[in-house]
């Protein structure tokens, strides 16, 4: 398990991390969310020991992260970088060797990744000649070649077209199936929701919320109840129940109610007030939770 406990990091007068804490279960996929400049990349670099925290600690399976542990990690940084003049296959093998693989093994694995990522035509070409998307695929192979226990991916989907994004998604799901723990950041909420089992939202260097989607939802104070068709009788019943109107769309009425409401009783009240054809309790989306956590939405 990865445990990040109250880490702090200053760069001169800038407080990049004030207090970031979260825990990631082994074998899970964890989403790190936050607006630009919130401290996601600094948090990832601190986990990888690229940066030393000014306070707090990071542990992997209860032990501090030293060189030997870090070697079993993989990293895809937000800013992509490859040796432009080095051939793709040679490059992947090199990074495999940096993570402790022997050359024949690294070569065997590199060939498998090249085939899987559909970049076989470029294997012998210098990386600089590849498109941005294909360079990103090479970097993913570099990061994952040694089958890391923990793979940290900073904005892995940025710059990828939908087809390549699907390939990456499949790769990440496969790594998860094989038992790797993944920590990733992305601004594509739908991809994170599809992949991740737990999340942490950080803003201005602080953890705002953290937990599984179910936990985050359970902590959400309100729910949207969608009933239809919209009618004065239905609005009257809602008012009597203390619900506020959040909006009306496609002939349905969205009501903002407390998360602890008795939804069975609410349904009975609406049925008694009018002829309804729809009653739906809408759970907050990750997007809603994110916006609220960073203070953009109430």
């Amino acid at each position, binding site marked *: 398990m990865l445990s990040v406990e109250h880490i702090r990091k200053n760069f*001169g007068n800038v407080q990049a991390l004030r207090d970031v804490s979260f825990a990631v279960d082994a074998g899970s996929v964890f989403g790190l969310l936050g607006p630009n400049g919130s401290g996601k990349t600094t948090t990832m670099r601190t986990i990888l020991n690229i940066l030393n925290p000014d306070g707090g600690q990071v542990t992997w399976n209860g032990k501090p992260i030293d*060189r030997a542990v870090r070697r079993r990690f993989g990293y895809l*940084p937000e800013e992509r*970088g490859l040796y432009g*003049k080095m051939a793709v296959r040679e490059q992947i093998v090199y990074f495999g*060797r*940096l993570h402790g693989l022997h050359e024949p093994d690294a070569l065997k694995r590199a060939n498998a990744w090249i085939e899987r990522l559909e970049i076989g035509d470029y294997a012998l070409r210098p990386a600089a000649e590849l498109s941005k998307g294909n360079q990103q695929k090479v970097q993913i192979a570099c990061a994952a070649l040694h089958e890391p226990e923990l793979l940290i991916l900073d904005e892995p989907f940025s710059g990828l077209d939908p087809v390549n994004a699907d390939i990456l998604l499949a790769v990440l799901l496969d790594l998860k199936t094989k038992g790797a723990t993944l920590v990733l950041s992305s601004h594509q909420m739908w991809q994170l929701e599809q992949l991740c089992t737990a999340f942490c939202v950080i803003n201005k260097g602080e953890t705002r919320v953290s937990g599984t989607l179910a936990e985050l939802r359970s902590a959400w104070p309100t729910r949207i109840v969608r009933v239809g068709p919209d009618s004065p009788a239905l609005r009257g019943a809602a008012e009597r129940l203390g619900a506020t109107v959040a909006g009306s769309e496609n002939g349905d009425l969205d009501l903002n109610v407390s998360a602890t409401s008795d939804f069975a009783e609410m349904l009975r009240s609406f049925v008694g007030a009018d002829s309804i054809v729809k009653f739906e309790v809408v759970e907050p989306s990750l997007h809603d939770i994110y916006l609220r956590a960073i203070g953009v939405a109430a």
Partner: protein
Amino acid sequence: MNDFITVYSGDLMRRIKSRPFLIGLVLGTVAIVAMFKLPTMLAPTIVNQGTRLVLVADAPLAAQARPLLAKKLTVKGVVPAGTRIDRALLQRFHADSAVSIAELKSGIRVTIFAKNPTSVPSGRIRTALLPLQVQHATHLTSAQIAAALDANIEVRSLSTKFHSVHQAVAAQGLAMTLVVFLYFLVIINSNFVMSAVAEEKTSRIAELLIASVDPMVLLAAKVLVGATLSVLQLLVWVGVGIALGSGGGTASAGAANANPFSLAGLLGNTLSPEVILAFGIFFILGFLQISTVFAGIASLINRTEDLGSISGPMVIPTIAGYFIALLAINAPALPVVTVTSFVPLLSPFVMFARMAVSHVPLWQIGTSIALNVLALWGFVWFAGKLYRVGMMLYGRPPKIAQVWEILRSPS
């Protein structure tokens, strides 16, 4: 250790195949060949420049002057006094100048007419005609004059290092050549190390590397790859030099020795094992110090265009060392030379120059090496601090205060 070997071997292979290294190797080899071959090829032209002359004098005077001039110059012909002297006359005799001699009561008057007055060997002509001048001024016989002018001058060396003037002069020439070579080898290869660090930072691959390998391992590998390539270059160039120097066998070596411009002759006469060892030690010390500092400061830049401006201040001590070393070749006992031969960054050049041309006490050599090793340790600490943080520092270039903060930080 495995990390180091992986990074070192990967970087070495990448750099060996890189265009700058190959171009540098080829150009250096061409320069070595030129240094060996050109002096031999050009020497006759240089030595004989302006020495072909036509003598203009009356017959008795010409008969006296011709053998005297012929000892040091080439007399292409003799024409009587009063002959019109112009370019056509010089062309007719394939001569560079016309030497007109007239007799006076007090001696002789010599007038030289030349196509290129700057190339006239007037000193040699004056020396050659001195007996004639004395003969006409004093009316002594030529035998008496020859005996009077034949002063018995001998120079004996009191130096413990050189036994003859010729040997000392040759050592100075060799030291000059090697100091220039040492300087360029250190500076060029340190710049290669700096460029390699800057390339990894600006291409953003540094983050990926530092996530996998300890930054100090990366830094050490980078500097030692530079050292390896420098030694490799040196071996190729020395190999080419040895091949060229010994190519013609004994006859050629003899000819080379006879030629004052011959590098082969210079090396053969004065390149002692002591000088070779000193060159190797001070090259390694100089290179490691300068390239380590260069690597550290290169980690602070975000654009390769900034390399020149940031390395500029660091080159100044190196240039100072180079010029003091050149001074040391002619005056190895100057206080400034002695003092700077202990100052790191300067001493690799200055102490080497001192050792090449004079006898330096062993304790001074040992102290200089020890101080350089100590300074190297300090430079590694300094560069390591900068590198560890600098490689992850993007955005605006850091200010002095920020660099100071980096150096003061505990990790």
